């Protein structure tokens, strides 16, 4: 350790000496070059690119701006930084000259090159002349540069194996050339159909569909498959679930109360329908942000505003309600920023954004848009609920009418017509047994059979269907007692600062309000302003992310200075303009991308032997992705045939052990019955304090904050879940039973393993795989026949061993991976 430190120090001194010697030499040189230094050509670009991001008139880090001559001469908090003619006393040079390959400035970035340092030194030596009127502009964040449609990349040569099918491929091919990588071959048809199914509808293909596609030599087969999947009602479920991540959708309030939001699902259903109908992304967004403000909004447009009703809510006794109300609004601003603008506005809640051009004042001007949205409900009983009710009534009514007829036998004799009408009316409106009291005197209640009669009536009344009355949580404009908005000093809600009015950040196009006071609808339309460069980039990047696992910008919610830069800027911009050109059609963009050769490449890391770039930044292959938590469940249910494909509607509660549900306060978890138990993962009721463990184990978001990119972890808890979770085991047993019945003969094992593979993985096993599985089957058959000290011998060892074989395949990496 000591040696290292010493040698480090030695190195440093050597480096320092070298710098000094070099500087001295440079000084002599610079005398000659003095006359020729050109500020605008040689110095300004350095300042602009390397200094102005922080040292501009707006941010003035360390009190210093280098935008103009005046500001530069004024210096910063440490005084003057430039002493004209005296490089040795110019603090600026001290800061930028690297020691040990690092320099104080630019902070946190690679130091200036020797040549750049020299240019600055020469400029100072020559008197630091800053021509009159020259004002430098700070660098513009790439994502804020105007969106222009780049010309499609030139296609140098069509490489065999990577046909240029559309513009995406031309851009990707240009990237391949630039990175000197070779594109992976196109994936085989079995991989492609499974990939398309999992990406577009989130379900695996049925074996028959796979075989039909593999056998189909129509050149349009792939395209037809794409169209078929885009038209599937399950498309809206899968892509709806992506959107629900952003909407931080949950079925409960969160925090201590964590009350169930009985009708939150109405919004979920809206999302699924809207995506299935391919509601253009601009309308889709505007309705969610401000559907209530549209002219004569439809119920559907009002339901859409449920997007921002998904925030956490704290209702604990004694809690500061105003604090948590403001936190909900802060969350709405942050979410709006991340989802549509790719801006981390949240950083400006307490102070001006440290990296991106958003001030605290601008944050609260955005906040003001949401400060006058009232939280109300909309009567939203769904047509299917009404039908369900009618059906229930129809099956209830005959038994009731029969009882009413039986009741007539108990009537006392001398009833007037009036009284008879009263009975009729009362019985007709019956909802509960206690209502009967009013007419009890008209019956022979001392009859020995009366109590039995009464019990039957009571029971039937208890079963009486209740008319649905669904109330969707929505926004409504606040008309009375409208709130003023103030800056919260240091983000503290009860330290009001300057009053602000609704408005948008200055770096983005100007807001064009309809009236004198801009409202949410103006904000929503502004987000889709033709000159707003962020929205289309952010939106199309997310579509890409869902089809490749990683976005062209790896930080989908942060297109700011600290976010990732696009790996393919031109491709991103081309896609962004294309999205708008195609009328914001989500389906059109997905279709465009999945039709490309780029999408269709093989995903194996070794698809091109010896190729580096394992991170696949150059997009030379597809990515292989573990499917999302909900899909992990869905592939099990689908492969076993248990899946209930009902779309939308209320959530379900699969069975859970008590120790899981008991950790929350008074958690009721009435388990769903019948086929409903086998609905898709996205319908599992999401209670924020007691999230369904399987979903969390596979990285479903916790719905506390908007989530634009899920983790994809790979853990032993996942292995334990796949191995032992009762739902997954039931799937293995179900499929095991089917296969054992179809292949009862142990000599039929190759066919049985073949079918297991086809049902689960959409392909037959390779020879080595078949052998391995059959060998396992034989051992498992023997073990099942024998039993052990804890387990009885199986009465049907064939079925037990086939089930175990299915369980093995359902535990393979490939089963829960989209290749």
């Amino acid at each position, binding site marked *: 350790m000591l040696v290292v430190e010493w040698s480090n120090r030695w190195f440093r001194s050597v480096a320092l000496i070298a710098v000094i010697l070099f500087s001295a030499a440079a000084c002599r040189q610079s005398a000659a070059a003095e006359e020729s230094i050109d500020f605008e050509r040689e110095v300004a670009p350095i300042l602009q690119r390397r200094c102005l991001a922080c040292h501009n008139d707006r941010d003035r880090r360390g009190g210093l701006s280098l935008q103009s001559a005046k500001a530069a001469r004024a210096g910063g908090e440490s005084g003057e930084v430039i002493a004209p003619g005296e490089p040795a006393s110019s603090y600026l040079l001290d800061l930028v000259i690297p020691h040990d390959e690092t320099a104080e400035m630019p902070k946190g970035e690679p130091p200036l090159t020797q040549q750049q340092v020299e240019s600055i030194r020469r400029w100072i030596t020559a008197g630091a002349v800053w021509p009159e009127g020259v004002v430098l502009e700070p660098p513009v964040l790439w994502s804020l540069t105007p969106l222009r449609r780049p010309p499609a990349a030139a296609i140098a040569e069509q490489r065999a194996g990577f046909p240029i099918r559309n513009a995406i491929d031309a851009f990707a091919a240009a990237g391949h050339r630039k990175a000197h990588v070779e594109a992976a071959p196109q994936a085989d048809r079995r991989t492609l159909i499974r990939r398309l199914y999992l990406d577009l509808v989130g379900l695996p293909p049925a074996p028959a569909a796979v075989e039909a596609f593999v056998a189909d030599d129509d050149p349009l087969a792939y395209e037809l498959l794409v169209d078929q999947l885009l038209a599937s009602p399950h498309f809206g479920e899968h892509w709806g679930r992506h959107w629900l991540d952003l909407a931080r959708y949950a079925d409960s309030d969160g925090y201590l109360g964590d009350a169930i939001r009985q009708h939150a699902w109405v919004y979920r259903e809206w999302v699924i329908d809207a995506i299935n109908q391919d509601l253009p992304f601009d309308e889709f967004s505007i309705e969610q942000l401000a559907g209530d403000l549209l002219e004569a909004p439809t119920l559907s447009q009002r339901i859409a505003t449920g997007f921002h009703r998904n925030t956490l809510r704290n209702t604990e006794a004694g809690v500061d309600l105003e604090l948590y109300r403001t936190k909900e609004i802060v969350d709405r601003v942050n979410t709006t920023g991340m989802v549509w603008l790719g801006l981390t506005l949240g950083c400006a809640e307490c102070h001006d954004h440290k990296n991106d051009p958003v001030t605290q004042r601008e944050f609260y001007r955005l906040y003001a848009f949401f400060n006058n949205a009232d939280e109300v409900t909309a009567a939203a009983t769904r047509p299917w609920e009404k039908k369900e009710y009618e059906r229930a009534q129809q099956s209830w009514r005959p038994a009731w009418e029969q009882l009413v007829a039986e009741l007539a036998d108990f009537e006392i004799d001398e009833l007037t017509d009036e009284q008879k009408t009263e009975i009729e009316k009362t019985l007709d409106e019956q909802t509960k047994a206690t209502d009967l009291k009013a007419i009890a005197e008209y019956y022979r209640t001392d009859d020995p059979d009366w109590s039995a009669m009464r019990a039957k009536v009571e029971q039937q009344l208890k079963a009486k269907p209740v008319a649905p009355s669904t109330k969707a949580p929505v926004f409504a404009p606040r008309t009375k007692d409208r709130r003023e908005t103030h800056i919260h000093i240091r983000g503290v809600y009860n330290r009001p600062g300057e009053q602000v009015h609704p408005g948008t950040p200055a770096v983005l196009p100007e807001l064009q309000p309809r009236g004198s006071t801009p409202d949410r609808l103006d904000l929503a339309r502004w987000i889709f302003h033709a000159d707003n460069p962020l929205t289309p980039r952010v939106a199309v990047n997310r579509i890409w992310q869902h089809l490749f696992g990683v976005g062209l910008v790896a930080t989908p919610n942060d297109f700011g200075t600290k976010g990732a830069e696009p790996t393919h800027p031109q491709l991103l911009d081309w896609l962004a303009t294309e999205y708008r050109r195609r009328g914001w059609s989500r389906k059109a963009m997905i279709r465009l991308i999945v039709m490309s050769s780029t999408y269709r490449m093989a995903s194996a890391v070794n698809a091109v032997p010896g190729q580096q770039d394992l*991170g696949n930044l150059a997009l030379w292959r597809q990515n292989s992705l573990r499917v999302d938590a909900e899909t992990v469940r869905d592939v099990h249910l689908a492969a076993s045939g248990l899946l209930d494909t009902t779309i939308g509607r209320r959530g379900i509660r699969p069975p859970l052990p008590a120790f899981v549900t008991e950790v929350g306060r008074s958690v009721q978890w009435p388990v769903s019955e019948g086929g409903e138990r086998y609905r898709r993962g996205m319908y599992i009721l999401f209670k924020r304090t007691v999230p369904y463990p399987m979903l969390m184990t596979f990285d479903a978001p916790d719905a506390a904050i908007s989530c634009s990119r899920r983790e994809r972890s790979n853990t032993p*808890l996942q292995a*334990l879940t796949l191995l032992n979770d009762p739902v997954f085991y039931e799937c293995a047993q179900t499929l095991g039973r089917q296969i054992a019945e179809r292949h009862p003969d142990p000599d039929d094992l190759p066919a049985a393993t073949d079918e297991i593979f086809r049902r689960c993985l959409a392909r037959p096993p390779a020879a080595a795989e078949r052998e391995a599985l059959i060998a396992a089957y034989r051992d498992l058959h023997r073990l099942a026949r024998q039993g052990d000290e804890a387990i009885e011998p199986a009465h049907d060892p064939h079925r037990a061993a086939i089930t175990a074989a299915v369980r093995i395949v359902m535990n393979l990496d490939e089963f829960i991976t989209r290749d």
Partner: protein
Amino acid sequence: MNSHNLHAHDFAQATLNRRRFFATSASGLGSLALASLLGEEGLLAGDPPAAVTHFAPKAKRCIYLFMEGGPSQMDLFDPKPRLNELDGQPMPESLLQEIKFAFIQKESARLMGSPRKFQRYGQCGMELSDLLPHLSTCVDDIAMVRSMHCEQFNHLPGQLMMLTGSALQGWPTLGSWLNYGLGSESRNLPGYVVLATLGRGLPGGASSWSSGFLPSQYSGVQFRNQGSPVLNLASPADISRGAQARSLQAINELNRLRHERVGNPEVASRIEAYELAFRMQQTAPELLDLSGETAATLAEYGLDRDEAAQSDKSGFLGSYARNCLLARRMIERGVRFVTLFLSTWDHHSNLDSGLARYTRISDQPIAALLKDLKRRGLLDETLVVWGGEFGRTPLGENRANFKTVTGRDHHPYSFSMWLAGGGVQGGQTLGATDEIGWGVAERPVHVHDLHATILRLFGLDHKRLTYRFQGRDFRLTDVHGDVVDELIA
């Protein structure tokens, strides 16, 4: 090392990340020998991970004894003779302005003294109430902080603040931060385990051990203290041990064939995860098997007491004592962070009997845990923290519908917590409250300061342990926190 470079966002590797549940693993790809694993004891410790710390760490592991609900400090740790004298008097009005309560009616509220007898114990002479006879024998290892304070008045915001440093849901808990910063040392168990003895449930449910915005592998894993310790740990009822082993072998064999075919490192991780899962199946039940513990040890924790065998709510002692003993066993097996929740100390009414009950449940096992750790030489590197989300008011709670005043309301403005082991300077009482126990009079310690101090004990600078999320580098201590040097030995 002058920077703690732990950003998980290595974008280039986004799809290749070999996410891990255990930071270390002794078994390499394809090295699985199930037969030997079946016989393996699974006790402790692979190689410790090459953790990056900013300072020499004193603590390696932590047992956090979380007292849900807010225990009453003036009846346990902070005697207030003046309060006893003023029993039944109104509060000075100046103190009541700006203060809000969950249930107390300000106008008619009266101060309430404590019936507890306090006495000095140990060489250090620490004062404790008569409710803590067992803990009184450990005071020389304990640093008592009487000057804790916070702003969070309600249970869940208070608990989230104490557990995550933020009153809002969605932030990572302390245990997640430590596992993220230091990794896990356990081969066979998760690095962050939670055991709960629950009255009416935890206000935050699973958020109480959530990894928040940190990757999910840093989340706490809830264990049961009986039966099968982890959800889905047990194989399905009709799968024998042999069948499970044979199935695992086939799964990994087939996954290896796939790995050869596609070369994707995620497949290798999957194989490793299955090996670890299988090892966990073998070893985790052993964790719960107390048959190897001596009768003396079981008795020390109170597991020989009659009430320990009862399974209803009066059997809490059994559950809590078991959890304390299991915490030691987990620490021995390299678990980084163990949280034991005990719910609930929320004594709005029947404070005296409530406190008597909860101290009867917890006093003996906690003292036993401290002594047991010390005897085994584990206390030096094991930090033990005791505390709730806040304390309770010196005012009696005169809730509108209460016939008599028998309890206290929530009080975040001053309360007590204690720490022991893991490099903590024991035998001291730090800070003081004013004479009626309303506010902090000396050496205030905010929750953020406590967090900064805990991280420091683990060798971490709370300002440098960061995670980038939504464009910001987040910390456990947000933008606050000062290390309390007096607490560090």
